[in-house]
């Protein structure tokens, strides 16, 4: 959990230019972290690369918060 969260957090900080303290599990990419739709698509792409997995378009649409991303990755790994 901690390790996944750490790696996800790093990607979010790099990509969205937010402060690490803002990256909470309940934080919504769009509402809290200033991401637009394309940013979210891009984040999902980077998560795929980072965790060497493929996230289907259907699953990707359900990833709205940091916690969604972390639990999705854990459910696959």
């Amino acid at each position: 959990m901690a390790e996944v969260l750490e790696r996800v957090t790093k990607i979010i900080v790099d990509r969205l230019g937010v402060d690490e303290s803002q990256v909470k599990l309940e934080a919504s990419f769009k509402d809290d972290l200033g991401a637009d739709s394309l940013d979210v698509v891009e984040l999902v792409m980077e998560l795929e690369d980072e965790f060497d997995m493929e996230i289907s378009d259907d699953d990707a649409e359900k990833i709205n918060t940091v916690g969604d991303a972390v639990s999705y990755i854990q459910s696959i790994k």
Partner: protein
Amino acid sequence: MNLEGKSALVTGASRGIGREIALELARQGANVAVNFSGSEAKANEVVDEIKALGREAFAVKCDVSNSEEVAAMVKGTIDTFGKLDILVNNAGITKDNLLMRMKEEEWDDVININLKGVFLCTKAVTRQMMKQRVGRIINIASVVGVSGNPGQANYVAAKAGVIGLTKTTAKELASRNITVNAIAPGFITTDMTDKLPEEVKTEMLKQIPLARLGEPKDIAKMTAFLASDDSSYITGQTLHINGGMVM
């Protein structure tokens, strides 16, 4: 205008306008993946010509209306060249018929290759171009996509669709420094226009202020410009190259 070190994929590049585009991009310095669907021998000729210019090239067979084949083609291009800077969506077919006589299959075939193919290829390259934070997508539309043309309901609808798709893609990808433009050729001397009856050609010439058909190089030169760094502030546009046929 210099495409030195850039990597390009040109669909429908074995013949006609696509062939000339592939060669022109190579003359300007790009490495080129030469897509074909039927004419393998002709695609190999283009590859040989590009290699003779000192650039890298390979031929890749792909039906652009098939998403799996498109994904494999794009992956192959990126694996070979290490990146993908330029996509030219040029592949296209005609199946002309009067609307009243047009078969559903003729409609579907043309829409699938000429419009869906552009969507699939664009979607497939976007991931790489977004990562690179730079990209050039150039869609070959047609003057008839703007003016309409009797006997070409399927082709015209597809080409008008390409122009709309160009604008939307340009808006979606602008923030990632990817530009997307369309070129709308008028009547250009290719196998596609050679098939037209003589009287149709004579009639067409009357509508062209410059009173001649265009050459594939007229389109290729503009494509190379749009693919270059010099065009970085142009996106979402349709460039008309038609001898003044439509203004």
